[in-house]
Structures are given as C-alpha cells and as structure tokens.
C-alpha cells in the first residue's frame, strides 16, 4: 500500500493520532484530565496566555536560543553544513523549561498550588522546581533511586530550589517507576494537585500540550535556518526518549515534505530486551517494541511475551524509558519520520567530539544525535544543511563520564 504524505499531525478530540495516544487511566483521573484539557484549549486560544509565556521564556529563560553553525563539526563530517539548535543555553540547561513554564502558567490559571512531577535525568525535575520557586508553588518531584545515583547533581539542584525529592524504589528505579509514583500521588490528591508531566507522553492532553509548549524550538529553528541559508534544511535530527525535544523541533516542519525528520533512540549496550530503549528497532522477535499501552497512552512499548514491561537500559537517564510518545508512533507508522538508534558508546563518542570540536559539552541524551548527524551530513552535499537539536547541556553528566573513563 502506498503511503500518503503526512502534511498535518493533529490528534482527534480524544487525543488519538490514528490508533495511538488516547487516555488509558484509572477512572479517578478522568475528571482532572478533562478539566486540564478544557483549560489547555482555552489557554491555547488566548493570546494573553501566549504573550505572558513568550515574555517569561524570553526574559527568564533566555529564548530565542541561537542556531549555531558548527563549522568544525561540519569540516569533520565533510558534507552538509551542521547547525546546532542551542537549547542547552536555556536557563536550567535544557529544553524542559519550555514545557515546565507553559504548564506552570496553566496550573496557576487552574488555581492549583501543589505541583508534582517525575524526572529521569533530573532536567525536567530541575525545570519544574525552578518554575515552582518562581511562582511560589509547592513542588514534589518523584525520581528513581538509580537515576538519583546517576544524576546526583540535579538532585542537589532541585533541593536547593526548594523542591521535595521523593526517592522511588520500585521496579528498576528509573523514569517509568517515577511516573507510576507520580500517577499514584495524583490519584490520591486530584483536588489540589497539578501533575506537570515532562515529556510528550501519558494520557491526553499531555502529548498534545507538551508538544505545543515545545514547538517554539522548531518555530525558531525554521526562521533561523531560512534567514541563515535562505532555504529549508535537508534533515532535522534529535534524540528521542519520550520525545518532547524531537517533536518540538519536528512539528513546525511536518508539512515541509523535503525535510527528513530523524529521531535517535537509545541503543544502549545490546540488542536484547532489557539492554536498550529503542522502541522501534531490532524487530519484535529480538526485543523491539510492539504496540501496547503504558502509563496512559497507546504507542510502541518495549514489552515481553506476556505484555509485562521489562527494564530498559541507556547510559542517559533521560532516554531510559520503555515507551515513546504517541505522535512519534504515528509519524513512524505513516513514514513521515525515521527512527534510528545510537549505542551508549556512540553517545559517549558524540559527547567528546562535540566538546572537543565545538567547545560545547552536550547532555548524554543530546549526545545520541551527534554521531548519526555526522554520518548523515557526510552523505549529503556541502550546500545542504542539517539541524541537530542540542536539547540540553552536559554539566550534569560530567561526573558520570569521568567515572566511566577511569574504569
């Protein structure tokens, strides 16, 4: 069957992109999700809301972020011109603040003073703790014990910002377990609590809402690359955990059919189930993801033969997750976006190459996109351009990388 080109990617009113997305939650959460959906669609059509958000993103967070022509990386690749979208220079160090700020404004509109969030790498936790400090809201962050070990610096930052960090000991003690705990908290405190979910995941309206708050990345990048080169880029490339930085970059280019959209998943250190977090890869038989339901949404999920969710592995806590956002599942099946993966070793190589050639230390998450970008740039002509989303900075990872290098 020939696939029709996708020029639009909007969910139906219940949050479905085709069969993906939707709302698979305990009954108690339906009412707060409906209230959130209603408030979000009001805010979405309210120019005052967007004006206030833009102002804060500009004055407080440092938007617009630069689109930097990485000439030494370009020379190293020997092909297309490589541009870095510098989300790493944002306040708190990653794109996560775009969404945290947007949702904090929504929470304020809804009169909620108690904010809960999950975090993997800690970047979303830090962003949430930051906006809560700014607006004087109570902040509780759920984080897996394993992630707290890997990202100790971010735990300390969250506590400095006045947040309560709750250690989650269940399961593999990573992002998925933190989301479970945050959902349980929300079920028990629906009346006064706002769940500030950090990626384009979970039940409707989160995947849509988080994308809308992250679209600013792609909107700016589109304007900047047109102004720098006079034409559209050939390729956009971004790492994909839940997929918020990638969907934020991709979405404003969806109808530009000439632009290839490439998501990079975490290939971890092996191909069997439990050794990676590459939901689209390796084929179902050898440990890839299959369509399923996890934490509120239908998407590609890493799962075993009985539908149980196994542990996943990635060197980067932010990509170490069994499900991918539903809109990515839709873009994958429709053929509009491509998904590849980079191993732990390739991510470490990208981390070093970017630091040494450009003087920029990327987050280990964002580092997954560097080596694939170099390979793809190499195959393209010099007059083509490729935009890499440098979604976060790597200060939080320096200690981990140092430990790995001394081993």
């Amino acid at each position, binding site marked *: 069957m020939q696939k029709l080109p996708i020029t639009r990617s909007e969910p139906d009113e*219940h949050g479905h992109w085709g069969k993906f997305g*939707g*709302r*698979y*939650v*305990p*009954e*108690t*959460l*339906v*009412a*707060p999700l*409906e209230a959130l959906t209603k408030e979000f669609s009001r805010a979405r059509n309210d120019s005052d809301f967007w004006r206030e958000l833009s102002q804060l993103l500009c004055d407080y967070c440092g938007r617009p972020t630069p689109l930097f022509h990485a000439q030494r990386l370009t020379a190293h690749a020997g092909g297309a011109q490589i541009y870095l979208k510098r989300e790493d220079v944002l306040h708190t160090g990653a794109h996560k603040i775009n969404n945290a700020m947007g949702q904090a404004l929504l929470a304020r509109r809804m009169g909620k003073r108690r904010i809960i969030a999950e975090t993997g790498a800690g970047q979303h936790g830090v962003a949430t703790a930051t906006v809560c400090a700014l607006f004087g809201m109570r902040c509780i962050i759920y984080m897996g014990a394993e992630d707290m070990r890997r990202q100790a610096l971010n735990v300390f930052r969250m506590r400095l910002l006045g947040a309560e960090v709750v250690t989650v000991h*269940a*399961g593999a003690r990573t992002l*998925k377990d933190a989301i*479970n705990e945050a*959902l*349980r908290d929300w*079920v*028990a*405190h*629906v*009346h006064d609590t706002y769940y500030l979910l950090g990626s384009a995941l979970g039940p409707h309206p989160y995947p849509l809402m988080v994308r809308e708050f992250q679209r600013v990345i792609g909107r700016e990048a589109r304007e900047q690359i047109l102004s720098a080169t006079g034409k559209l880029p050939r390729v956009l490339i971004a790492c994909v955990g839940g997929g918020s930085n990638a969907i934020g970059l991709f979405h404003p280019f969806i109808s530009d059919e000439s632009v290839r959209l490439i998501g990079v998943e975490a290939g971890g250190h092996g191909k069997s189930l439990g050794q990676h977090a590459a939901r689209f890869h390796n084929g179902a038989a050898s440990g890839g993801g*299959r*369509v*399923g*339901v*996890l*934490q*509120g949404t239908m998407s590609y*999920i890493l*799962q075993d*033969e*009985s*539908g*149980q*969710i*196994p542990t996943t592995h990635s060197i980067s806590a932010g990509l170490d997750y069994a499900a991918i956002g539903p809109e990515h599942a839709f873009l994958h099946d429709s053929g509009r976006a491509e998904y590849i993966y980079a191993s732990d070793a390739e991510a470490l190589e990208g981390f070093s190459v970017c630091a040494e050639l450009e003087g920029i230390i990327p987050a280990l998450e964002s580092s997954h996109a560097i080596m694939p970008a170099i390979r793809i740039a190499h195959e393209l002509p010099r007059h083509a351009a490729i935009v890499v989303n440098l979604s976060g900075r790597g200060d939080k990872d320096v200690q981990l990388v140092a430990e790995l290098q001394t081993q």
Partner: protein
Amino acid sequence: MSRIRDTFVELKCSGRGGFIPFITAGDPDLATTELLLVELATAGADIIELGVPFSDPVADGEVIQRASERALRNGVTLGDALTCVARAKQHIHVPIVLFSYFNPLLKFGEDRLANEAKQAGVDAVLVTDLIPEEAQPWTETLIQHEVDPIFLVAPTTSDKRLVHITQQARGFIYAISRAGVTGARDEMTHDAETLVKRVRSVSDLPVAVGFGVSSAEQVREVWRFADAAVVGSAIVREVERLSAEADLVNRVGQFARSLVAPKSVRQAAGN
C-alpha cells in the same frame, strides 16, 4: 442472565450484603491461589476478584504492588491465571472477576481472551486502566462471549460520565470509595455513600464498593448503602504475612470469616 446478575438477585432476595474478596493470581504461587479460591468461596465469598499481575500497577497501593511483584517473579501470566480459575471452578461455583491492567490483555488478544476466559469459567473482566471511551471493541467481544465487562466509577466521575459508564457496564458497578490507590484505610469517607446514591439515580445495576475496605466494621458500613463490599489489600496483606506458613490457606480463610459471618447467618440476620 449472567451468573453475576444471578448472584446479586439472590443477595437482594435474601436481604444479605455481598462479600467480594480479592487475591492476586500466583501470590505466593499458583497452587496456593487455586486453594485460596476454594477456601474463600467456602468462607462466604459471593464473588471473588482475581488479580492478574502487571509490572506497572499504577492504581494499586504498596500491598498489591508487592503481591504483583511476587507473582511476576514466579513468571505468572494471564494464561496461568485462566488455568488456575478453570481448576478451581471444578470445585466452586462462585463467580470470578479477573482484575488487571490493559497491556497484558491487549498482548493476549481480545478474541482469545474472551474465548479462553469463558472456557475457564471467568464471569467478568475489570480493566483498571481501560475507561469506556477506549473500551470498544473489547466490551462488545466480552459481552458476545457472555463475560461481563465491569467498570469502575470514582467520586470524581461526573454525572454525565456515570450515565455513559453504567450503559456500557454489565454485572455490577464497582464504586471506588475515595480518590486514591488501593490499600487499607482506617476510616470510610462519606464520598462512597454519596457516589453509590448517584449511581443508583442513573442505573439499576448492583453496586459494589471497594478501595480501603479492610475491617468487619467497614464491610458492615458498606452494606448499609451498597450491595457488596470488596476487600483487597487487607486479605493480600494476610497472604503476604503468612506466605511461609504451611497453614496459609486455612488462616486466610479464618481472616475472611472474621470479616463476614457465614452466608446462612448473614441471611438470618438480614444484613
């Protein structure tokens, strides 16, 4: 008429409150689960809920989370739970409700589940994270195979959705006593009674109340305004506490008997 419907008709005729204990399949092992199903039926259960373990039970508190983990460590699957029901059903006639999350069911397949559940003697299926809006065509397939889809309602459920949910549900309505995950609580809130009244105003389906019902007093309190009480975590906690004991099955049976009087006595007492 489904067996669950029959059960509630019988409860109503005899003026008796219903008792619905919950256990997790494969906790501590499948052989014990089979014996527990029989023991709970003997101890006065009118319906039994059998939890099928899932790795990410977001609606459950710590006690049932741990039970799921124990069962999953034993490698227990949905297929195992069905086999367990089929074996127990050779000895008991109490209706069985499978209680799980959507992903293991989705993986098993909708037609296969409906077929095999029916064959095993499962009377109903309750999927904690499947709301009616997402439940088609599952609901229809189950109904075609004479397996009742049970749905939850919560204190936060709007009147509009109560109508929608009760229209899709069969068997009974499971009312969540309060906002929160499963787990024993010291006190019942007024939320449960208010919710049951709201359900009754839009539907004739019987109503069972669960989440946080853990003592004989609370069971009697629920019977005052609802058709049946579900006791989950309190029983699962006993299974956990006694898991190394040779007489686990008898002692969990004793605990169930401490929650409710035998059916004949309940009938005579009219409560």
